[in-house]
């Protein structure tokens, strides 16, 4: 009897796992199936021409470039905060200190704050500081979103470092700052993983940039100009009643998916590298 139950439940469990894999394949498959036919070289390399939103010529380079600009800026900002913070928690504070527990806890909560709330807060902040929807606004808001993500994955790899490494460095008479510099080099693949994860998350998020970055058909040339983003471009094109424009939305979705796939797999590559030469 119990072996029958065992068999039945094992089948159900395998079924559940297969369903999840099938759904993933279905999602990626659908996007590629719908998008690939409309994906042309022009889509990738041109900005929207006249009548683009009526199905005429042009591409989504404005959105791709805007997304890349925003994520680059946001990445720099969030690295400036998260790397020192992780080093501080792991190397400066005692191992089970109350303070580091509080920092980790508040980062856990920041991690769970929805992107739309960051968007609304970013917008309120910009109104307060007198910035209009612009590249700068997008950068600040996306930095808020990806900072907890980076910090968490950095923290995870830093905790994996052998404990005697810092001790060895300290015993040679280095200050903690010098020790941290050496260990940072050791952590490089881990930092790469964190960066790629954060980029993947930040580049795909629409709700944060919806009010903060604005939208434009041109490639922004300064921080004060509005910037288009790939997810928003997909969203707006999909809302169009013209079929060619909708097809372009699917093609843009393919571009975004390919970016995400590359990010995800290289993150995995770097993290396996880190685990290997640990």
């Amino acid at each position: 009897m119990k072996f029958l139950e065992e068999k039945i439940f094992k089948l159900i469990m395998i079924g559940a796992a297969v369903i999840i894999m099938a759904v993933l394949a279905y999602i990626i498959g659908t996007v590629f199936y719908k998008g690939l036919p409309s994906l042309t070289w022009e889509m990738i390399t041109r900005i929207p021409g006249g009548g683009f939103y009526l199905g005429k010529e042009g591409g989504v380079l404005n959105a791709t470039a805007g997304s890349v600009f925003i994520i680059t800026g946001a990445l720099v900002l969030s690295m400036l905060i998260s790397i020192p913070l992780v080093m501080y928690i792991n190397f400066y504070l005692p191992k089970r200190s109350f303070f580091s527990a509080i920092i980790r806890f508040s980062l856990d909560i920041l991690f769970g704050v929805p992107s739309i709330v960051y968007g609304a807060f970013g917008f309120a902040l910009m109104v307060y500081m007198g910035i209009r929807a612009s590249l700068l606004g997008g950068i600040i808001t996306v930095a808020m979103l990806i900072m907890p993500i980076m910090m968490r994955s950095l923290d995870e790899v830093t905790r994996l470092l052998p404990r005697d490494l810092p001790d060895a460095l300290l015993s040679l008479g280095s200050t903690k700052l010098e020790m941290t510099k050496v260990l940072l080099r050791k952590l490089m693949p881990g930092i790469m993983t964190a960066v790629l994860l954060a980029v993947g998350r930040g580049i795909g998020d629409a709700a944060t940039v919806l009010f903060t970055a604005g939208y434009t058909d041109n490639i922004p040339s300064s921080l004060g100009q509005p910037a288009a983003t790939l997810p928003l471009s997909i969203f707006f094109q999909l809302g169009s009643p013209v079929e060619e424009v909708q097809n372009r939305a699917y093609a843009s979705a393919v571009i975004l998916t390919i970016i995400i796939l590359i990010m995800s797999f290289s993150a995995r590559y770097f993290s396996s590298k880190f685990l290997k030469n640990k």
Partner: protein
Amino acid sequence: MRKIRYVKDITARHLMLGIAIFVIVFLIIIGLSLFFKALPIMKEKNLWVLLTSSDWKPFKGDFGFLPYIISTFYVSVIAIVIALPLSLLTSIYLNSYASGSIRRFFEPVVDLLSGIPPVIYGVWGTLTIVPLISNKIAPHFVDFSTGYTVLAGGIVLGIMIIPLLISIMTEVFRSIPVEMTDASLSMGATKWQTAKKVILRKSFPGIIAATVLALSRAFGETMAVLMVCGNVAQIPHSFFEACYPLPALIANNYGEMLSMPSYESALMFAAFLLFIIVVMFNGLSRFTLNQIEKRYQFS
């Protein structure tokens, strides 16, 4: 020479301390600024009226959030109902049945599912789930449905929270001492009996915490849900009616509300509400999960 090194070290230490304090205060800053932005509408209207009225006429000054709150709740509950059994079964399978190679194969699957942007989920939802509901499922229950429904939102959202659930649950399962499951197995219990009677019982608080965490993620998800759930401000009476969750409300109306201070304040109130709920849920479940992790480290 020696002195400069120490000055550098001390400066760096203080800078880092400053950053650490900033990060802790940041959460409070977000909460407070949303609160003050929402204050005008809370002064104008009774808080109870805001939360329980279903009149939404911004241009007449009626702001009732009930349809949005109920929509958010329905969509999230459907998502959990779909995602929880799937991820629970999969996590048990990965934990106590699957070989190392299957586990390694499954890791990128979970990674990718969590990495796919909400907009892509939305595109997929409009391409597949919406027509499926409108053509195949809904006709069995109601006369007509556009497909842009509570159910569509729930299904898409359910898939989006699966990776979060799986990654937390596998961690919770891992925190159960091997001796315990070994003891059960050596008494002649099958793997499923062990899973049912030992693993599930032992990790029950962790599973609850994971569910609450996933629920709060579901509350805040914006783009994907917005694209498939129809966005009609009404209290949905069945799964096959359109709905309008809170995040979608904020996202859709942000551009046009600037001219009206009370409208802006009302949307900020929505964001504040979302923030408070999510922070509470997150705080509770993270606390529980940390407790579990701690027990595992010391045992």
